[in-house]
């Protein structure tokens, strides 16, 4: 509870809106489609490396990009078949 709330309800949605827009637009302005190309080629490379050792379904490699503030994280999620099945 902040001090302002003593003087009636002060909404905070406008500052949330401003924040979201600033983060989004910073990325949209820089985005020339290269992110999508990067993700798709990374996915292919990772799939090839893993497939050398383990037989996997191409659809089981998932790449996700998450942008928070100035940091972009890349998440790689590979579902391996159970030992018995291979």
């Amino acid at each position: 509870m902040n001090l302002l709330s003593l003087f009636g309800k002060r909404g905070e949605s406008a500052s949330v809106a401003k924040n979201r827009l600033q983060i989004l637009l910073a990325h949209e302005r820089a985005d020339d489609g290269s992110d999508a190309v990067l993700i798709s080629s990374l996915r292919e490379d990772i799939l090839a490396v893993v497939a050398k050792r383990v037989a996997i379904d191409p659809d089981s490699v998932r790449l996700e990009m998450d942008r928070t503030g100035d940091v972009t994280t890349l998440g790689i999620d590979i579902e391996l078949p159970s030992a018995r099945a291979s």
Partner: protein
Amino acid sequence: MSNATVVVVTSGKGGVGKTTTTAAIASALAKEGYQVCAIDFDVGLRNLDLIMGAERRVVFDLVNVVRGEASIKQALVRDKKLNNLYLLPASQTRDKDALTEEGVASVISELRMYFDWVICDSPAGIERGATLAMRHADEAIIVSNPEVSSVRDCDRIIGLLDAKTKIAEDGGRMPKHLMITRYDTERAKTGDMLATDDVVDILSVPLIGVVPESKDVLKASNVGLPITLSDENSPAAKAYTEAVRRLLGENIPVTIPEEKRSLLGKFFKGRAA
């Protein structure tokens, strides 16, 4: 012979007030004595004629002119009240490719000879109609509501203004003005609505005017009069008139005209609405 300034009124998002703004600015400029032409680029969804109260006098349209079926002078519709204000209506054709790049270029260059100001009302979106409307502009008025999707779309449009226009291709930079419409001072004050400074911060475009949410805008469109002609004392009309003075180069601070409210009205604010 004049050499007009061509202004595009654009936003990306629909329903934010491009047509209202075009009509209001064109009429306010005409009231100042300039020769003004407003062009509706929204082919297939013509509406500027309705807002300006000229719908019953439209014979030829922009597409007829582009195709050489009518001359510009035949297609221009003169305003009922101001004889130095003209409208070049959009066509109601469903043919999306009715406007050609060369056709629009020649229409604009001819209009430049007859008028002081040519105001282009852009359709929503970022397709052909919108890019053709901005193509030959000398200046742009970007219309935004204080709302996330509208601001985001304006950012896209700013990108197009800096890439797809004649000025940009010739290595210049399109002068831009931000018009915030449907603004509610009270809600901005309580933090429930993006404030003008927030929008200016995000888009980095200088403010030319802030039009408050006003019931007068709907009333004006009901009767087919631009808000700057229908009710000069309306806060919205004042905001547009002020914006036009800035467009003309006057250096005046941006104010947000407000509805006149009696003391009692202030007291009961919120309950009556």
